[in-house]
């Protein structure tokens, strides 16, 4: 099956040394290692045999035509697929060498460690402060009220929103503009101090200025976090990511250094897609 898909790294995850040979700048530890991941929605198979290693402290962009399984794969990483009754995930996904699908893993803790930002901004209909404070509160990350304030301010600052909202933290989060809401959601995701941030088309509802701000933010965040981002914009993938994975019809077709994927794709389908021949 691997041969049929023509996946470049299928079944042969690159070790750190190998990686450093191919791409010296990308010599990083593997943060997330997925092997033979398959997802079924009822009878329908949405992902076929995905083997993908995601290096730490980098941005990896998932690209591919609509319906190819990008979101499905991403939702495997924090087990959000568990919330869909008919979804069934097989294969193994390891984060820092620990299989996150084993029985004794606590999903709640996992989701705190693997934060997620959704395509459509979805702040809670509560105040800006409460939006950010909610995660730390339920996980007991703040010992005192001042701790909590510190966490909120820090998260909002990192998300590049603090200056805009610092004097209306009690105002409802739903009253912000779309771009501000999305940055609020990012602040909410990083408030639980996750190791990985998943972003599913975070800029699809935003104007170019807001998009630029978020891209800038992603660039800064990658110092401390491993970031997985789904995007339909080739330019955005090229701008923000160090690695790019191309999905097609449920298969991971090709993965590699972003520059290489965009300048010298190995697979015909990748080439067709990034040059806009289909999709």
């Amino acid at each position, binding site marked *: 099956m691997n041969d049929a898909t023509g996946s470049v790294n299928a079944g042969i995850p690159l070790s750190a040394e190998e990686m450093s040979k191919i791409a010296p700048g990308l010599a990083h530890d593997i943060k997330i290692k997925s092997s033979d991941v398959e997802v079924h929605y009822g009878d329908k198979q949405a992902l076929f045999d995905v083997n993908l290693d995601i290096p730490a402290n980098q941005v990896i962009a998932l690209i591919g035509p609509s319906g190819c399984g990008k979101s499905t794969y991403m939702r495997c990483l924090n087990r959000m697929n568990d*919330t869909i009754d008919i979804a069934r995930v097989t294969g193994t996904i390891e984060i820092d060498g620990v299989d996150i699908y084993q029985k004794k893993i606590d999903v709640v803790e996992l989701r705190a460690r693997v934060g997620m930002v*959704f395509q459509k901004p979805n702040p809670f209909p509560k105040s800006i402060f409460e939006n950010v404070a909610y995660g730390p509160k339920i996980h007991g990350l703040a010992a005192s009220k001042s701790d909590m304030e510190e966490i909120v301010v820090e998260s909002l600052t990192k998300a590049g929103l603090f200056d805009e909202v610092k004097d209306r933290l009690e105002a409802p989060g739903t009253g912000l503009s779309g771009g501000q809401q999305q940055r609020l959601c990012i602040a909410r995701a990083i408030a639980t101090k996750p190791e990985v941030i998943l972003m599913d088309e975070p800029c699809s509802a935003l104007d170019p200025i807001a998009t630029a701000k978020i891209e800038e933010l992603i660039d800064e965040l990658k110092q401390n976090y491993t970031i997985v981002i789904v995007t339909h914009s080739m330019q955005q993938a090229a701008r923000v990511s160090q690695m790019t994975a191309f999905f097609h019809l449920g298969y991971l077709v090709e993965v590699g250094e972003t520059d290489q994927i965009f300048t010298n794709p190995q697979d015909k389908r990748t080439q067709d897609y990034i040059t806009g021949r289909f999709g």
Partner: protein
Amino acid sequence: MTDVTTSAAVSARHDWASNAAKRRVKSRYAKDRRLQMYGIAAIGFAMILLGILITSLFYAGYVAFSTTKVELGVYLDSKQIDPKTPEKANYRKIVRNAFLGYFPNVKGRKEQRNLLKIISSGAPFILRDYVVDNPDQIGKLVKVQVPVSDPFDQLYKGVIPRQIDALSFDRIDTFEGLRQQGVLSAPDGRTVVKMTVFLDPERVSAGQFSAIANEAFKAFFPQARNTAFVEILGGDAAKRLQAFVEANPDMVGKTAEVSLPISTNYDNLFRTGEAKVRNPRFASDNVFVWFDALVTQDLVSTPFTWELFFNADSRFPELAGLAGAISGSALALLVCFLISFPVGIAGAIYLEEFAPKNRYTDIIEVNINNLAAVPSVVFGLLGLAVFLNVFGLPRSAPIVGGMVLSLMTLPTIIVATRAALKAVPPSIREAALGVGASKHQMVLHHVLPLALPGILTGTIIGLAQALGETAPLLLIGMNAFIPSVENIGIMQPATALPTQIFAWADSPERGFVSRTSAAILVLLGFLAIMNAIAIFLRQRFERKW
């Protein structure tokens, strides 16, 4: 993409100005208008019916919000009322003497009894309560407003007349037939009927003059099937006939022309055109004189009172109030709320958020919806069989009423709660799960608060339905007669607003007619308040996202 070589018929432009097109537009407008008209007509019809209902209730019921009272000047003699135990005195006697004091000329037991019927039988209790509340007044002359009895209350409010028609329509009709035969006349102030009598010697000698007269009178009504004519001939007709025979003994055995008197009501009808008698609710004609005397001395008034709300039930309509019913309904609703709100929400949350979607949950869902359609009387029977007979809970108690009502509100609350939960956007759930909230945190912290206005609206509507429910309460006996509100409790016998209405509507006293309407108005008022709260909650807590 479009094919340039499509046939002319397809590519030809539609002619919007053609007659056919214009006709189509016109008929479309006409249809729009017609549909709108149907809608307006339907709403108008409903509004008119509602208007008629409310107006007629108000018209009939507003008098119950005031009570006709007579001012009683009473000397609270400390010889009769012991200041240490003021509640023990014989207030019946005190009230009696005070009221009879207004009419020193009325003597004789029977007359005095009629006179005392003007004031309510509850007057002694009102005086007692007044004295118990104001013991410092003992030894002084006080003025106390006591209610008049129901007939005078209704009379003063103009609901019932002093006199009513004495004769029914078919009697008047029968008499009209007689009048048209031209046999009636009133030569000396008394109407007589001229008739032909056969003076049968046997009957005359036996003294059966009444039988002779009646026999002859029957001849005027050859087709009469009913007995509407039997009372027309006066009671003294036989005597007149006897006098005639005694004056003309030679006529015995022959046929004679005689004029015999007719009875009072028909006499009045013939001479004055109408026949009235005293309303039988009043004991004698004198009571009007006495009552008018009280009115002219400005002792009678109809103040607006809250007694309808604060009095308990009574056999005497002028004293009956809704306090027992309101408190009973409130307690039953409280029990109903305490049971159905948490259980309904818990059930709905489980079904909506946690239960797997399979055949069993489908069956449960269908059954809950069916439960909402079960006639309430069935729940009453269930309550009777289970809560009373199996669990042995007390009859007539609000706790049982509330439990039965909660069976009815549960499905409403579950259905409303599930709808409200469904309306919370999935993005909020994802957001909560995404930051690592567990499922119960997601539900309790985010979904439930957002669904709460919808849940509360559904709950209030369910409770409003329960408030108006009569049949199940009747079955478990929650229509007890509650003459005092001192022993109110969820385990005590009680009544409720709808069952009180039912009981009053069934009572013969005229005063209960307006009480019934007023009680319905109170019930509708409570329903309106509850619905207003529901609307307020919906608008107040509705959130936009």
